Structures are given as structure tokens and as C-alpha cells.
């Protein structure tokens, strides 16, 4: 637990997260954005909705790294890390999904009909289905974990499953939607983070700090849960 104490108890990255999130909110609302038809001011959702998914991907990566570390050392501490990073990543994914639903109902839906009338069209979008598959695979991770009683067996099986889940994550949220026609930006030779087409430099200087800020917030929440769980485990053993 010594290496955990090193970064989990440091406060500089927590302060960095607070500063970056404050900057995201202020610059995100007041900063210059390109004038695009249809999107209009909703383009500012890039700093919030898209950052949820980026934070999710980074946290799932941290989770799978800890799963591999567990399999290399069989230290149960890494199993706890992997679980909590995955849970926070799922929360971020759900937030990304629900914010995306709100955004889509104002930009993708037929403006002449109520938003729910366009639901069948929107729900068929490959990006949404891909993201749903990815999240469901990780829900299964939690179910699998909690259905095994034996601690070592639980840790080992869920670490292996975590690697499989990570392997399906990027194909289902990036590769699969890109090769299919979709309304979502970042499909069919239309990279969402293209300088010429989509986001200008004035948005990049907010977007990248926003990704770091939201990710650090996720790491903060995960480390709090990890520290609490480690305390609980210690009490149980003593």
C-alpha cells in the first residue's frame, strides 16, 4: 500500500482537477465558438458530453492496467483498484450516454415532431448501439464479479474478463460506428476533432484541459472509494 499512499494522498492533482474544471466552466460558457447551423450554442457540449466519454476511456484503461497488474502479482490490492476504476468509468459512460440523449433530442430529432417520434431513428445510430454494447459488457463485469464468493477466484476471473471487455470497448465505440453511416460526428471519414471542419483552435484550448479535469475528478472519486475499501478490508482481516 506504500505506492498507493504516494499519489492517492497527494493534493496537487486534486487542485489541478478543481482549477481545470473551473476553467472549463468559465471558458466553456464564455469562450469563442464557431457559428455552425443547427448546432449553434450546443457545440459547447463538447466540453461536457465528449469529455465524459474521454474520461471513461482513460478510466477503463487504468482499470485494465490494474487487472493485468493483478494477474502478474496476485496482489488483491490491484483487484480493488481495477474494480473501482471500472465503476467510476461506467458512471462517466452513463453520464455521457444521458447527456448525449439530451443533445441528440435537440439536434438530431425532427424539429416538426416531438423528440420521442424521432426516437426509432436516433436509437438505431451505430454510435449509440456501440456505446450501449460497451457499457453492457462492463455491467456484465460487475455482475460476474459479485456472483463469485471466493475472493481469489473472483479477482482472477474478473481480471481476465476485464481484459476481454477492454478488447471489445474500442472496436464497439470507435471502429464499428466509423465504418457505418451515422449521424454522430466522427463517422464515415469525418473525424470529429478535425481542425478544418469541426472544432476551432479556440475550442481546443478548452476541450483538452476539460478532458484532463474531468478525468482527474474521476480518478479522485475512484481513489476515495479504493482507500475506503482498503480500510474496510483491513478491518475485516484484523
Amino acid at each position, binding site marked *: 500500500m506504500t505506492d498507493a499512499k504516494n499519489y492517492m*494522498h497527494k493534493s496537487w492533482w*486534486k487542485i489541478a482537477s*478543481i482549477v481545470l*474544471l*473551473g476553467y472549463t*466552466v*468559465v471558458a466553456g*460558457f*464564455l469562450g469563442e465558438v464557431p*457559428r*455552425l*447551423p443547427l448546432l*449553434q*450554442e450546443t457545440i459547447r457540449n463538447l466540453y461536457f458530453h465528449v469529455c465524459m466519454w474521454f474520461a471513461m476511456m482513460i478510466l477503463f484503461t487504468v482499470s485494465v492496467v490494474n487487472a493485468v497488474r493483478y494477474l502478474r502479482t496476485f496482489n488483491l490490492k490491484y483487484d480493488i483498484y481495477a474494480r473501482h476504476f471500472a465503476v467510476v468509468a461506467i458512471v462517466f459512460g452513463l453520464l455521457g450516454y444521458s447527456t448525449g440523449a439530451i443533445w441528440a433530442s435537440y439536434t438530431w430529432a425532427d424539429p416538426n415532431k416531438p423528440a420521442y417520434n424521432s426516437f426509432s431513428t436516433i436509437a438505431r445510430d451505430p454510435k449509440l448501439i456501440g456505446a450501449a454494447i460497451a457499457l453492457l459488457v462492463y455491467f456484465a463485469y460487475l455482475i460476474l464479479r459479485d456472483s463469485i464468493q471466493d475472493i481469489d477466484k473472483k479477482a482472477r476471473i474478473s481480471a481476465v474478463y476485464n481484459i476481454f471487455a477492454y478488447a471489445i470497448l474500442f472496436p464497439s465505440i470507435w471502429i464499428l460506428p466509423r465504418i457505418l453511416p451515422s449521424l454522430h460526428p466522427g463517422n464515415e471519414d469525418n473525424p470529429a476533432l478535425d481542425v478544418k471542419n469541426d472544432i476551432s483552435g479556440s475550442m481546443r484550448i478548452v476541450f483538452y484541459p476539460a478532458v484532463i479535469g474531468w478525468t482527474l*475528478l474521476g480518478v*479522485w*472519486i475512484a481513489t*476515495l472509494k479504493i*482507500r*475506503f475499501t482498503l*480500510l474496510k478490508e*483491513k*478491518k475485516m482481516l484484523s
Partner: protein
Amino acid sequence: MDRYIKNPFHFTERKKDAIMNSAKKITTLLATFFLSLITFAQDKKTEMADMMKENGRIYVVVAVVLTILIGLILYMVRLDKKISRLEKEN
């Protein structure tokens, strides 16, 4: 009987009328073209929340979101401190 006009349906102005009519049509057509030009010009400018920024009211939204963010972060800091104390006790 000179009160009967030789040819009552003789309109000398008829030709002129036709020219006037076509001129009217053309001007109306041109006017509608210009009207459509005006609407094009309006389409080009994407509607943004410029009004809100001019009024300064967008700052209210920023203040509200920042308050929520600060509240959440204070909660996080408190949790962090509580867990740190528990760790010290153990």
C-alpha cells in the same frame, strides 16, 4: 349619327398597356428575387446566444454552474479528509 363611335372597341393604348404589364411583372419578379436574397443573408448568420451575452446574463449561468461545482468539490474534499482521518486511526 355621330354619337355612335365608328369602332367602340378601338383601344389605341392597348399596346402600351401590354408593355406596362410586362414591366410590372418583371419588377415584381425582381422584387421577389431580392426578397429571397434577404432571407438567404439571414440564413447565413447562424443564430447564437448573442443577446444573452450582450445583456451579461450568461454570467448568471456561469455563476450557478460554478456554485454547483464548488459544492460538489467541497463535498469531495470533506470525504477525502474523513477517509484520511480513518486511515490515520488504523
